[in-house]
């Protein structure tokens, strides 16, 4: 038991200090005929003067004396009465001291409990902090992974577009190549006829008629004209492709979006599927600072979507492309009267990887990519659609200084 414990046995010396004794002693001494000493439990004098023969009155708080009153003058009865009174004072003081000591201990206990709790909370906080760091790291890793995959899919979409383009182009180029090649073969046969004429010059004009060279000459010229026009077509396709991909231009430049639209129309419309018409209504536009290669991709992809929507509807239709400018910027609309989209499809249209086409037929990145490109140009893209009636995609590009 330490000196601070509330449940120790208290003694007079610690309950009443000198000041208190100086206050209580004199009146009590007067009651005891002027002769009083106050002693601690071990007989040590605390107040007054004690004669060696003085009578002692024990002051008991619990079981044993906590102190004594001593007097030689006072009668035993009076000393006993004074002792009872003094004990009552001591008891009141002891109760007060015990209660406050206990209170202090309880508060300390509660404080210790709080400190323990605090330590526990700190530990748990540290645990959660560590957990949250781990989670953050894992989220970062997964985001990086997702970004890598998304990049791959964007790439795949690009390749798919390129593949589709390449297939169309191959068809378009093969066609003139076929007849130019065939024409040149025929032309070689015609030249053979002239070789034969050289051997039959002796026959004169009869040989010319005989070899039907009037027709050969006339048809030869036609053949060459056909070849020339075929090659012209190939040259135009190559030129379109070049300007479409912008292989030989810087990425950001001031461009006329009408030119981009025309390129996209000419690339998408080669070949034009049966029952699909492309109409343009282009109004003069101010030049826009942009990446024409990317915008071409957007326009191509939107026009292709429109064409597919018409094919999906299973009836003839048209994709109408119009452009207009006002003070705030450039508005471009690509509208088709194809199958249209349901509200549910419309809601998810811009979601990456969302596609209504069968697996492998579409990556679901066309509109998502288009939107990213438009956003990169500080523009807006919106879709209006009525199922069975068609879809209109509106693009807006704010004027650039």
């Amino acid at each position, binding site marked *: *038991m330490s000196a601070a*414990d*509330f*449940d120790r*046995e208290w003694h007079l010396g610690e309950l009443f200090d000198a000041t208190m004794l100086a206050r209580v002693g004199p009146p009590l001494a007067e009651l005891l005929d002027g002769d009083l000493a106050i002693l601690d439990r071990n007989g040590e004098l605390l107040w007054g003067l004690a004669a060696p023969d003085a009578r002692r009155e024990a002051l*008991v*708080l*619990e*079981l*044993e004396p906590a102190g004594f009153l001593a007097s030689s003058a006072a009668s035993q009865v009076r000393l006993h009465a004074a002792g009872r009174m003094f004990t009552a004072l001591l*008891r009141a003081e*002891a*109760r007060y001291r*015990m*209660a406050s000591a*206990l*209170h202090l*201990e*309880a*508060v*300390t*206990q*509660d404080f210790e*409990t709080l400190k323990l709790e605090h330590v526990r909370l700190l530990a748990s906080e540290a645990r959660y902090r560590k957990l949250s760091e781990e989670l953050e790291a894992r989220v970062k890793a997964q985001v990086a992974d997702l970004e890598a995959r998304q990049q791959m899919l964007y790439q795949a979409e690009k390749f798919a577009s390129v593949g589709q383009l390449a297939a169309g182009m191959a068809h378009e180029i093969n066609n003139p190549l076929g007849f130019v090649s065939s024409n040149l073969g025929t032309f070689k046969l015609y030249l053979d006829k002239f070789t034969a004429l050289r051997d039959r010059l002796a026959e004169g004009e009869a040989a010319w008629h005989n070899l039907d060279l009037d027709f050969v000459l006339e048809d030869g010229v036609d053949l060459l004209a056909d070849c020339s026009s075929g090659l012209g077509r190939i040259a135009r396709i190559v030129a379109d492709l070049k300007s479409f991909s912008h292989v030989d231009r810087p990425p950001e430049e001031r461009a006329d979006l009408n030119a981009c639209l025309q390129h996209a129309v000419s690339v998408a419309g080669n070949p034009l599927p049966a029952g699909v018409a492309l109409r343009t209504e282009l109004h003069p536009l101010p030049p826009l600072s942009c990446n024409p290669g990317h915008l071409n991709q957007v326009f191509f992809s939107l026009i292709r979507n429109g064409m597919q929507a018409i094919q999906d509807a299973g009836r003839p239709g048209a994709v109408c492309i119009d452009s207009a400018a006002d003070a705030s910027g450039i508005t471009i609309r690509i509208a088709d009267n194809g199958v249209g989209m349901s509200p549910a499809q419309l809601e998810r249209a811009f979601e990456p990887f969302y596609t209504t086409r069968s697996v492998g037929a579409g990556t679901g990145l066309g509109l998502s990519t288009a939107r990213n490109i438009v956003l990169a140009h500080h523009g807006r893209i919106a879709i209006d659609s009525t199922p069975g009636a068609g879809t209109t995609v509106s693009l807006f590009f704010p004027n650039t200084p």
Partner: protein
Amino acid sequence: MPDQDATSLSFKLVYYGPAQSGKTTNLLRLHDLLSPELKGEVMTMETKDDRTLFFDLLPLGFRAPSGLLIKLRLFTVPGQVAHDGTRKAVLSRADGIVFVADSDSAQETNNGEAFQSMADNCHRVGLDFEHIPLVVQFNKRDLPSAVPEAEVRERWEAAPWPLCFAVALRGEGVASTFEALLRALYRHHAEALGLAREHGISENAFVAGMLGQTGTPA
């Protein structure tokens, strides 16, 4: 460990239990029933609506043949949940415990929680709960809603502590509970303190001295 000096030995005993299970009543009845050589007044610290806020204290004592003064100081803890800090402080340095449970079947949860808090608090104030002398008293046996004795005994069968049954208000079972604790206390400390060897006190003499009976108690 009890407080010891050359002339005296002091044990601290604590009555623990849920609110209003009858801890203070146990002390008041013991004061009336016991007549040891030395018996102090019950010191009741501040109460509010008859509920203990701090503690009650009853000092008892007798002198061994060797002249050693053996003192017991019986404390009660405040039962109300809010005073847990005070409860821990009162429980500190205890040499023995009486757990006063309320027999009312509606109080079973409170009993359980109080017992658990006692075990927890013992650990917190550094008492060896596994070995400290402990007696469990089921008080208020006279309640119509009291859990039957057989059921209580069955439930506590596996527990190592003596079980007592009491109606503290009528003074029934109060002394026998105290006696059970005295015996556990003696057995726990007699050897280390040389009670029999040095001071000539047997277990029965120890019990008799504290209860204030001459001869062997029943």
